């Protein structure tokens, strides 16, 4: 080994003539974050369509400031507890009107002051479905955003609901009106601004080296205090092994979610200079039952429209050991479609455990018996055989699907696994062309997002689930100004009862951070938002 090592060292000397590069001392105030994707369009109102990526949002969080930030417990319904950011203070004029006063010290990185006009400009763009379809959908309750002088912005809403302030502050950060054409869209972006964005956040843009990294520098004039970390690099490595190698070799200081298998986390944990930071994630993974016929959506699914079959499948799956095997301590079995990010999960009951006897009984109740002794139940000559679809890029879902397949086989249910290429899986899912879909939803911090998938007319309700009782509760929870927790929990309970899906996992993300950073807060709703508060030894 020493001979090989020496040989390689000689090759390096001969090749580079600069071996000192590898041992050069690191700038302790620089932070290198390695991520899976590179931000190509980290500009609010442009992060639409395929540019709607976490990588873009992470960099945008450093460049652009929100009007206010979520409280530490992620409660989205109490405006008094939000943390001032670009807005210094706010006041409610009536149940439909909010007024926010901008911090007069806030400036763009080019030195111009941030004004109410910038906020109005941004919201005009964000509320325009031709420019920003996704944002327009999220902000559809805002009927007007107007400026009163240079510093005051007034929001008016179309109805009374608990998350007005959240809608006004969380979804989009203001952008400079003087640098962006009114009509620019993600398909027709202002190339100069994309190449060198100018924001008002704690970090300013330095450079982007395509396919490699983005460099940001601390904004010394940041009005909430100059960051201690002077340079931040978002380094790109699509492959999880490459990311881990960069961490272990000391070439990167931090990374976001360390992807499965669990051994990856253990490798990082074993490194003495790194620590693992578990953090609530916005992901919830579930086996979604298609209640409509695959080929004719007007008809019920021949098997899965029967609630007994759905409940039997749920009862036959022992989720806890599966989650333990795949995620170790970094996930829990959720109660209903609630990721760890959603505050409504607090106080929810424990999810039910497996009950194979109940599963068999429920199947028998609907006429499913194993008449030919092959281990699979049949009804009217047809075996209970279903396809479970999932994207082939997801190692987690593959591992879980295999275990689910095995567990259901013991209950007399045959599961065929369809491991599909990502875009094909997504297309089939959106068209309702599946029996059971292994979905992994990424949720916003607001529970009102549940309407998308779990209300009768929800835009992403591809499974055809419909319970008017749940819809009514959702309306109530969203419009109530206080005491909503119990209503949200009743919603989760009813969804669990209806069994539109088996909710399998709600993971915590395992972040890794170098120990030389003694204070390194990471936020669940936006991982690197508080890099501005990080300190180093």
């Amino acid at each position: 080994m020493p001979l090989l090592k020496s040989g390689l060292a000689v090759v390096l000397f001969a090749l580079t003539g600069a071996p000192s590069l590898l041992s050069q001392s690191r700038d302790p105030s620089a932070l290198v974050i390695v991520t899976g994707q590179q931000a190509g369009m980290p500009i609010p109102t442009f992060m639409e369509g395929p540019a709607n990526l976490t990588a873009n949002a992470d960099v945008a969080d450093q460049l652009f400031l929100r009007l206010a930030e979520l409280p530490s417990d992620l409660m989205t319904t109490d405006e008094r507890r939000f943390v001032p950011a670009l807005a210094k203070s706010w006041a409610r004029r009536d149940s439909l009107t909010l007024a926010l006063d901008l911090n007069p010290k806030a400036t763009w990185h080019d030195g111009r002051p941030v004004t109410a006009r910038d906020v109005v400009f941004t919201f005009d763009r964000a509320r325009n479905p031709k420019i920003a379809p996704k944002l327009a959908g999220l902000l559809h309750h805002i009927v007007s955003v107007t400026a009163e002088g240079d510093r005051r912005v007034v929001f008016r809403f179309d109805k009374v609901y608990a998350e007005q302030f959240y809608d006004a502050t969380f979804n989009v950060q203001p952008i400079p009106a003087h640098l962006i054409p009114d009509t620019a869209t993600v398909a027709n972006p202002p190339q100069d601004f994309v190449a060198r964005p100018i924001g008002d956040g704690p970090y300013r843009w330095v450079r982007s080296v395509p396919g490699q990294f983005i460099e940001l520098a601390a904004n010394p004039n940041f009005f909430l205090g100059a960051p201690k970390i002077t340079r931040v690099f978002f380094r790109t490595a699509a492959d999880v092994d490459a990311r881990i190698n960069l961490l272990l070799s000391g070439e990167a200081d931090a990374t976001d979610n360390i992807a499965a298998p669990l051994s990856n986390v253990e490798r990082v944990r074993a490194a003495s200079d790194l620590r693992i930071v578990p953090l609530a994630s916005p992901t919830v993974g579930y086996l979604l039952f298609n209640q409509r016929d695959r080929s004719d959506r007007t008809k019920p699914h021949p098997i899965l429209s029967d609630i007994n079959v759905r409940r039997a499948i749920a009862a036959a799956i022992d989720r806890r050991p599966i989650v333990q095997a795949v995620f170790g301590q970094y996930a829990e079995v959720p109660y209903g479609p609630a990721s760890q990010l959603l505050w409504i999960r607090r106080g929810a009951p424990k999810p039910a455990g497996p009950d194979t006897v109940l599963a068999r009984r429920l199947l028998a109740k609907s006429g499913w018996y194993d008449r030919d002794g092959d281990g699979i139940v049949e009804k009217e000559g047809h075996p209970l055989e279903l396809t479970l679809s999932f994207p082939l890029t997801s190692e987690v879902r593959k591992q879980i699907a295999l275990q689910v397949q095995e567990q259901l086989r013991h209950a007399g249910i045959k599961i065929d696994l369809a491991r599909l290429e990502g875009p094909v899986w997504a297309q089939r899912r959106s068209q309702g062309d599946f029996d059971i879909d292994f979905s992994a939803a990424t949720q916003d911090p607001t529970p009102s997002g549940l309407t998308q998938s779990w209300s009768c007319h929800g835009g992403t309700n591809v499974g055809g689930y419909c319970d008017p009782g749940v819809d009514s509760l959702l309306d109530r929870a969203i419009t109530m100004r206080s005491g909503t927790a119990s209503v949200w929990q009743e919603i989760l309970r009813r969804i669990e009862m209806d069994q539109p899906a088996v909710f399998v996992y709600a993971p915590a993300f395992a972040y890794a951070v170098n120990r030389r950073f003694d204070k390194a807060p990471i936020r669940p709703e936006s991982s690197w938002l508080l890099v501005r508060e990080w300190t180093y030894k």
Partner: protein
Amino acid sequence: MRRWLVHRGLQAAITLVLVAVLLFFLMRLAPGDPLGQLGADRQLTPAQIEATRKLYQLDQPLPRQFANWAWALLHGNLGTSFTHGRPVTALIAERMPATLLLGGTVLLINFTIGLWLGTVQAVRRGTLADRSLTALSLTGYAMPSFWLGLMLAWLGAVHWHLFPAAGFENPLLPTDAPWRTRAADVLAHLVLPATTLVVVSIAGTMRYQRRAMLEVLPLPYIVVARAKGLPEAVVRRRHAWRNALFPVLTLVGLWLPILATGAVFVESVFAWPGLGSLAAEAIGHRDYPLLMGTALLVSSLIILGGLLTDVAYAMLDPRVRWA
């Protein structure tokens, strides 16, 4: 010769046009949708997805989309990437240096060391050296490139800290660092991915060269050269080696597209910012403009590789021209 060249060039151009048309329609007709995944992962409503589809003009009929794309292509415009929001030509141009550096280095090592080792094997046919080199090269050939890359990265970067683990350059290096330092940094990053690719690919060159030499060495003109009293080294280099290069020329033509995008796994393991990873990303996202841009580039290189091989044959062997 000129007429032949024009004829061959026209053939290549027509092939490229046909490939472009086929590529466009096959990609659009293949299952999967660039925006479908948004609905699955991002909680977008179908209405929002439709609005986004309009933004990218994906709502237009396929012939109209083709006409727009072809018209833009005729003006040298490959379109704007859906995921990057930037012109495809710029994205390809940005990734080209890393691709050429890695591919060029591997090609250079393959066709210097590989040819030399192949010749040594042929000359020493049946000896321990021949058998050992065959075993070693085939062992390398049999290794999956991603596995070998992972092993080399673990040994060279994580365990011994000799080379960088991934990437093309050290982001912490000052932008005003001397060129020598910057070049050394890039070379240090190149060592592990280039070694991986050389190990898994050099066997092909060696086997081709060995076989070609073995076919040439017993031929009458070699016997005549020896009979004339020429030193063995001259016989091998001037008479045998040169003529044994013809079959290897074909290999150069085959290598050209691999140079551009063939190292997807190695690029991935070492986060090498080349065209291979860009193409893989485009496929994963169904980023049609970027997918078309990279696919067209590879097709062009395949056609160009074939053309250059034919030209080289024609220049070196008059019998090919006459045929």
